[in-house]
């Protein structure tokens, strides 16, 4: 059959087999975390509404596998690529190769440092970290007590390091704030053990900053099982469990990104780009700061 809508840059993509449908390659970072699963749900929803086909790859946070997936998608000549980069510099050559084949590249969640990228959709992580930091600043200033903060993070994640930087910067000149050294705990059970250990050594640790889903939930499990109401968590990525933690008072405040919205916007951008329209270079998705006061609006029991 012939390709009637073939004006866009996807001229290379014209396969013989009924090519009215737009195909989008989704190079995920992982599909084993709620956050990314939510992005995917958003992607699938909008793609379905628009009758686009989606190819999804899960490299499980392995940069080599993600690059291979991008190459495979280029080989298959998809009409657009949505990329959640595992490593935001290492994907650059593969992205540029895809671009050279005329495939528009939409990045989400993690900014990719290349001018070849059509757009970035996601959270301004430094700002979000800062926002949480400022919120926290108010709390400590009003309590007047010193704050000793343990940090659980993924040292490998650029995005999470940005959050940490923003958070720390917001608290830079607040008196009585000390940070313990960062501990690695992207996985829930890892984070659980680390928080238990930190509490052994620092009975005066009254706050924990956890930079993503697993770290928050591990810390939450540790505090819950110790019935510890003296130490409060601050963190990113509210899941149902975390929401309960907020309601129960273990978690002081969290930044909620809008992963589903990120996914939805990414597909919309991909569809536009595939049709040859230009898309905005950066589409910020606002974050929501959740605490006891507003969490009920988003998570009903």
């Amino acid at each position, binding site marked *: 059959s012939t390709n009637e809508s073939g004006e866009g840059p996807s001229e290379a993509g014209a396969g013989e087999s009924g090519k009215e449908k737009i195909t989008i390659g989704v190079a995920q970072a992982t599909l084993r975390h709620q956050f990314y*699963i939510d992005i995917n749900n958003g992607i699938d929803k909008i793609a379905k509404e628009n009758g686009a086909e989606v190819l999804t790859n899960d490299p499980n946070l392995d940069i080599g596998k993600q690059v291979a997936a991008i190459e495979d998608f280029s080989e298959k000549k998809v009409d657009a690529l949505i990329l959640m980069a595992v490593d935001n510099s290492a994907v650059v050559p593969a992205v540029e190769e895809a671009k050279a084949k005329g495939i528009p590249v939409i990045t989400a969640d993690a900014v990719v440092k290349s001018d070849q990228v059509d757009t970035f959709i996601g959270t301004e992580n430094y700002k979000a970290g800062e926002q949480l930091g400022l919120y926290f600043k108010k709390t400590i200033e009003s309590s007047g007590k010193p704050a000793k903060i343990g940090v659980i993070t993924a040292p490998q994640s650029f995005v999470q390091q940005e959050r940490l930087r923003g958070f720390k910067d917001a608290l830079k000149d607040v008196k009585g704030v000390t940070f313990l050294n960062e501990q690695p705990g992207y996985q829930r059970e890892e984070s659980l053990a680390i928080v238990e*250990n930190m509490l*052994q*050594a620092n009975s005066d640790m009254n706050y924990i900053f956890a930079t993503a889903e697993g770290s928050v939930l591990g810390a939450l499990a540790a505090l819950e099982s110790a019935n510890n109401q003296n130490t409060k968590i601050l963190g990113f990525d509210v899941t149902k469990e975390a929401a309960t933690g907020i309601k129960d008072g273990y978690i002081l405040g969290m930044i909620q990104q809008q992963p589903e919205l990120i996914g939805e916007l990414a597909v919309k951008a991909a569809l536009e780009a595939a049709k040859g329209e230009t898309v905005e270079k950066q589409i910020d998705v606002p974050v929501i700061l959740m605490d006891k006061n507003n969490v009920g609006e988003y998570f009903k029991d």
Partner: protein
Amino acid sequence: MKNNELSGQARMLQKPNFTRKLSAFLLDKGSAVIGLILLFVLMSILSGDFLSVDNLLNVFRQSAVLMIMAVAMTFVIITGGIDLSVGSQIAVSGVVVAGMIASGVPVPLAVLITVMVGGIIGLGIGSAISLQKIPPFIVTLAMLTILSGVAFVYTKGTPIVINNPQFRFLGRGYLGSIPIPIIIMVVVVVLGHILLTHTRFGRYVYAIGDNEETARLCGINVRLVKIGVYVLSGAVTALAGVLLASRLSTGSPNSGTGSELDAIAAVVLGGTNLFGGEGKITGTIMGVLIIAFLNNGLNLLNVSSYNQMLIKGLVILLAVWLSTMKARKAMAK
């Protein structure tokens, strides 16, 4: 001449039987006990928080899951096998037990069924290895992926939260001042030790790992024993998975990821021969505790995460190097 003199002195030193036994134990190739002791002493000196009843109970409770997995793995490795899928088995049993409890199955029944499911998974693995003669590494590598896939398909990637207090008690409760996970761990360790050293099944496990053909010719039902080992390992690992789910109050398809390497490392650190035929549960205990105390100590000392990597690796090398000293000396002779 020199040597003769030395060994004369050595003989003198040997007289007090107790000292000799103690030093034999310390230098026993089959356990990393000397490494553990040094680590323990060092940590006690460096961190004031280390040597407290609270912290020790904390470490033991943390190591329960790994300990139980490692006991199961000890059996597998002594037969000359390996199980790379235990991490995924943890995930599967976590989501299975959580799923059942979420849908109202009473806790004891849910736990029992989960352990049985673990046993059935082990049966599959064991059959492929024992009857189809596919190398254990391949079978369990494939199962690592498959079971993880199962856990994700079952949950669609979303962890199942468990609020049941009875279930939470398993991982978070206390009997007096002793955390329940420690009690479960001790029971598993003791039973594992008895099974391995005081039953025919246990001895067959050694014989098979040592020389499978010999075992067969001696009339041992090699296939059955091998399958039995994987069934046992599957069931025990499922128990560990249940415990972890309870500690996290969640059945997550992510939990357990990568823990196979920890379990194998603990077993090998404890002096069990990766080629089979040799090994002890007591050694495995040492291996698990080295890992646990190391992690705990570094956290207590507030070592930053990159430096932790360096130190962990070096300490493990050192611990094993000390433990293999005796073996090296024997070789030199």
